[in-house]
C-alpha cells in the first residue's frame, strides 16, 4: 500500500490550473469553489465507504470519526488501518481526499504539535522523555509517545482506544511493564482521564487557529538547510497553485556546499492551514518535505521518502515585497585570526552585510536578494556569538572562536538497522556529525557562557562499546563507518553462520570522532546500536 499522504505516482501529472480571467480574483474564486467541491466529495466518500460501520450522527458528523483530531499522517494511519484490519476498500485518490478533509476540519493547531513534530519529521533517533511515568509505561512502551501526543480526543474516545488496543493486541497486558500491574484498570481509570485532560478534543488553541486567516504560500521561497553526511545547502523554490484544494506545484533549484546541485520538481499540499507536505523528485529519488508554515516561514525536515534517515533540517522564507530576512549563514562560524568565505542566505537581502564585532567583510564576492557571498576576516581577539545583519535585516547566528574547547558527537546515541539481503526491509544508516563548542569569555569549560561553534569536519571510526561487543566482534560484523562523512552503513540482515550463536549482524558500537584544530586533536564519543529491522514502520513511528 502506498503510505504517503499524497502518493508518489502523480508526481509529474499535475495539471496547472488555468485561471479563468487570469486575474488573482478569478483564481481565488476558482479555489473557493474547489474547496466546497472537495468537502462535498469527501462527505460523499464517507457516506459511501464508512457508514457500513460508522453511524451518521448529524449532517457532517459520524460516530468515532467526528470525535478525534489528528495530524494528516495520523488520519492517514487511521484510514490505512481501516483498510488493513477492517476490510475498507478505498482508492488512493479517495483516501487523499479524506485525509485532506479530516486534517483540515479536525487537525491540530500548530502549538498542539510542538514538542512532537520529530515524529512527523521522521527523526527516528529522538530519545523521548515524558514527565508522566504512567504515560511512558502505558503508551510510549510500544510506540512513540509522539504518536499519542499528536492526537486529541474526549475521554470516551480515549476509552475506545484502550479497548481497541487490548482487543487488537491481547498480549498488551502480559508484556513487561504491564504484567506486573493491573493493566486494564490503570488504562481505563487512570490513563484515560490523564489523556482526556492533557490531550483534549476541545481546546482554545484549535478554536483560535481555525479563526486565523490563511497564510500565503504561492510565490518564491529561499531555503537554507543542512544534511548530515553531505553538508549545507541553499536553494530557491517556486511555488504555484494548481488544481485541487491547497495544492501546489514546486520547482527547487539549489546547491550543496560541495557544489553539487539540488534540483527537482514536485508537488505540495498544505493541510490544516500550515502542515506543508511535499514530494520532490531529485535525481530520480523522491525527497519529502515535512514543514510547518508559521510566521511566514517554513521549517522542518526534508528527507528521502524511501530512506528517511537521509535528511536535512530546513528553514525557508518567502519573498515578500519590502521584506528582508536572514535565514542562515553558511558556514555559521569562523576562527579568530583567519579568513573564510561565508554565504548569507535569506530573502530580500539588500544593503551592507555586517557579520559582527571583530569580523570584517573583506570582499563581497557576489550579491543577490537571496544570497550574498563574502570573504570575511576575524580579528585575533574576536570571540562570541554574533547576530549578523544585512541592511535593515538582522538574523541568523554567527560564531567566532579562538579555539575549540570540546567536541560532541551528534547524535550522542543513534540506531542503525541491518537490512537488505533479500529481506523486505532496507538497511537504515546512521549519520553522525562532530559539534564543536567554545569555552566562552571565562575560558572555563562547562560554564554558562560556553557556546556552540557548529559542525566541524572530523575523522570517524567505530569501536566495540563493551567487552561483549569486543568478544562478539561487532565492529567486524555490524557494518562500516565512512571515515570522512560519518555515515555508517550497517551490514546485511539475517542470521550469520559466522557469528556466535548464528546471530544476525547486530552490534553495540562506540562512535568516535577525531577533530583537528590547529595542532590540537579532540576526540569525542557517541554510541550506536546496530539492531534488527523495524518491521512495522508507519508514518508516525
Amino acid at each position, binding site marked *: 500500500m502506498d503510505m504517503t499522504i499524497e502518493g508518489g505516482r502523480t508526481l509529474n501529472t499535475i495539471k496547472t490550473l488555468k485561471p479563468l480571467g487570469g486575474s488573482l480574483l478569478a483564481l481565488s474564486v476558482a479555489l473557493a469553489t474547489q474547496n466546497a467541491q472537495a468537502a462535498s466529495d469527501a462527505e460523499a466518500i464517507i457516506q459511501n465507504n464508512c457508514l*457500513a*460501520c*460508522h*453511524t451518521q450522527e448529524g449532517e457532517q458528523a459520524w*460516530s*468515532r470519526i467526528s470525535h478525534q483530531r489528528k495530524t494528516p499522517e495520523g488520519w492517514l494511519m487511521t484510514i490505512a488501518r481501516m483498510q488493513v484490519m477492517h476490510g475498507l476498500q478505498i482508492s488512493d485518490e479517495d483516501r487523499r481526499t479524506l485525509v485532506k478533509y479530516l486534517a483540515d476540519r479536525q487537525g491540530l493547531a500548530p502549538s498542539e504539535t510542538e514538542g512532537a513534530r520529530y515524529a512527523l519529521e521522521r527523526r527516528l533517533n529522538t530519545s523521548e522523555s515524558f514527565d508522566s511515568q504512567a504515560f511512558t509505561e502505558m503508551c510510549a512502551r510500544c510506540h512513540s509517545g509522539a504518536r499519542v501526543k499528536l492526537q486529541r480526543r474526549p475521554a470516551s474516545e480515549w476509552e*475506545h482506544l*484502550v*479497548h*481497541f488496543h*487490548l*482487543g*487488537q493486541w*491481547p*498480549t498488551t*497486558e*502480559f508484556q*513487561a511493564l504491564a*504484567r*506486573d*500491574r*493491573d*493493566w*486494564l484498570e490503570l488504562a481505563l481509570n487512570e490513563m484515560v482521564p490523564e489523556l482526556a485532560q492533557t490531550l483534549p478534543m476541545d481546546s482554545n488553541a484549535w478554536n483560535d487557529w481555525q479563526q486565523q486567516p490563511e497564510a500565503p504560500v504561492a510565490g518564491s521561497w529561499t531555503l537554507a538547510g543542512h544534511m548530515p553526511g553531505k553538508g549545507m545547502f541553499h536553494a530557491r523554490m517556486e511555488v504555484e497553485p494548481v488544481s485541487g484544494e491547497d495544492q501546489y506545484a514546486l520547482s527547487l533549484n539549489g546547491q550543496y556546499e560541495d557544489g553539487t546541485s539540488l534540483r527537482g520538481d514536485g508537488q505540495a499540499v498544505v493541510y490544516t492551514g500550515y502542515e506543508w507536505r511535499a514530494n520532490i523528485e531529485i535525481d530520480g529519488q523522491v525527497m519529502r518535505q515535512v514543514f510547518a508554515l508559521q510566521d511566514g516561514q517554513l521549517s522542518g525536515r526534508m528527507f528521502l521518502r524511501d530512506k528517511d534517515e537521509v535528511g536535512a533540517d530546513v528553514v525557508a522564507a518567502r519573498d515578500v515585497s519590502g521584506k528582508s530576512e536572514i535565514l542562515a549563514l553558511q558556514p555559521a562560524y569562523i576562527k579568530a585570526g583567519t579568513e573564510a568565505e561565508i554565504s548569507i542566505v535569506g530573502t530580500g537581502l539588500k544593503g551592507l552585510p555586517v557579520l559582527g564585532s571583530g569580523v570584517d567583510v573583506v570582499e563581497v564576492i557576489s550579491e543577490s536578494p537571496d544570497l550574498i557571498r563574502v570573504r570575511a576576516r576575524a580579528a585575533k581577539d574576536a570571540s562570541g556569538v554574533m547576530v549578523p545583519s544585512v541592511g535593515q535585516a538582522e538574523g541568523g547566528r554567527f560564531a567566532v572562536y579562538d579555539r575549540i574547547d570540546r567536541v560532541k558527537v551528534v547524535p550522542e546515541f543513534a540506531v542503525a538497522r541491518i537490512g537488505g539481503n533479500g529481506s523486505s526491509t532496507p538497511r537504515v544508516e546512521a549519520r553522525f556529525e562532530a559539534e564543536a563548542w567554545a569555552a566562552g569569555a571565562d575560558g572555563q569549560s562547562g560554564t554558562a557562557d560556553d557556546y556552540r561553534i557548529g559542525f566541524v569536519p572530523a575523522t570517524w571510526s567505530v569501536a566495540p562499546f563493551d567487552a561483549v561487543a569486543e568478544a562478539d566482534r561487532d565492529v567486524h560484523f555490524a557494518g562500516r563507518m565512512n571515515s570522512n562523512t560519518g555515515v555508517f552503513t550497517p551490514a546485511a540482515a539475517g*542470521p550469520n553462520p559466522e557469528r556466535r*550463536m*548464528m*546471530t544476525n549482524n547486530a552490534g553495540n558500537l562506540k562512535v568516535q570522532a577525531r577533530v583537528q584544530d590547529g595542532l590540537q586533536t579532540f576526540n569525542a564519543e557517541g554510541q550506536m546500536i546496530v539492531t534488527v529491522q523495524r518491521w512495522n514502520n508507519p508514518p508516525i513511528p
Partner: protein
Amino acid sequence: MMNTKRLTSLMPTAALVLGTALTGSVLAKGPALEEGHEYMVVANYPNNMHVIDLQTDSLYKSCELPDAFGPGVTQMAPDGKTAYILNNHYEDIYGVNLDNCEVTFHASMSLQKNERTKSIFSFAISADGEELYAVQNPTMLYRDHYRVQPSRLAVYDTGSGLDAKPVRTFPSPRQVTVMQTGEDGTLYMAGAEIYKVDASSGEIDVAIPGRSWERPLYAPPDVLNAWPIQSPSKDFTILYTTARFQDESYDLNTADWIYGFMNVDLETGETQTTDFGPITEIYFSGILSPKDPNIVFGVLNRLAKYDIEKQELIGAAELDHSYYCIAMNHDGSKVYLAGTFNDVAIYDADSLEKLGNIQLPGGDMAISTSQVFIR
C-alpha cells in the same frame, strides 16, 4: 455433447485436491505410539506436530494440524495418547490422537458471534484427562468499536468432540498465563498470583502470592511465562526475577538482583518460593531436575544449572542458538531444548555436554511448548 474443454480445465484442480488429501492421509498413517515408551511432542510451522522417540532421540512421526500455527502451546493428556495444542493465533484448542494423527477435540475460544477470544498460553488438562480448562480473554467486536470483556475460565469435557462448548464457565482474574492441574483436581493458574482454583465451583484462592507477596525488602516479582511445562517430577515451576534491597531505603542501585522460582508440587500441593541465584542472564523457561530437587535448569542463550541451596551457578553450556523451552526425560539424565529454529538440542544433564540435535521437518518452533511423556 459434453464440453470437453471445460472438463479438462477442471481436471488439474480436482487432481490437486485429491493429491493433497492423499499426502495428508499418508502422513497421518504413521506408526502408533508404543505403550510405556518415552516420547517428546513439539509443534512447528507451518502446521506440524512432531513426536520424538526419546529412546533413540529421533523423529518418530509428524502429524498435520488444522488451521494456522501459533503459539503452539501443548499439553499432554495423562494417558499419553492425546496431545492438546493451543493454535490458530491463540484462538483454538485442538486435541490430536498421536496414534493416528486424528483431531478428536476442537474448541474455539470465542463463544459467540462478534466475539474474538484469545487464550494467552492458558490451558490445562485435568489429572484424570476428563476436563480441559482454558482461561479466555474475549473482546466484543462491535460495528465501530471494541469492548474488552472480563476474562473467564471455561471448562470443557474432553469427550465433546470437534465442536466443543464449555460445560461450565466462571469469572477469572485477568493476565492469567500458564496453568497446570494437581493430582487432587486443583487447578493452578499463573497470573498476578499463582491461583488455586476449584474447577467445579470456580472458587479462587491464592496458592502462592506473587504480585502481593510480602517478602521483607523484596520488590514484587516479574514473571514471564509462556511454557506450561509438564515436568516428569510433577512440578509446576514458575521462574521469577526480583530485587532484594539492602535496607528500608529501598535503593535500587545497591539492591541484589535475584532469580527464583515459585513451585507447586502437583502430587502433594506443597508450594515454595525460592531464590536460586543472582541474575546474570535471562532464562525463558526453567525446570527442576527429576532426579535431584536441589538442581534447577534455565535456558535462553545458555543452558544453565543451579545449586538451589547454595544459590550458585554450577554449570553452563554455550548453545548453537537461542532455545526457549526446556524439557527433561523422566530419569533426569538428559535435557531437551526446543523453540526457535527447527532443531531440538540434547544435553547431558550432569556434564552439560551436548549429545546431539534432532532436525524437524518444517519451520520454526517459535514459542511452542515441548512436552516429555510416557505413552
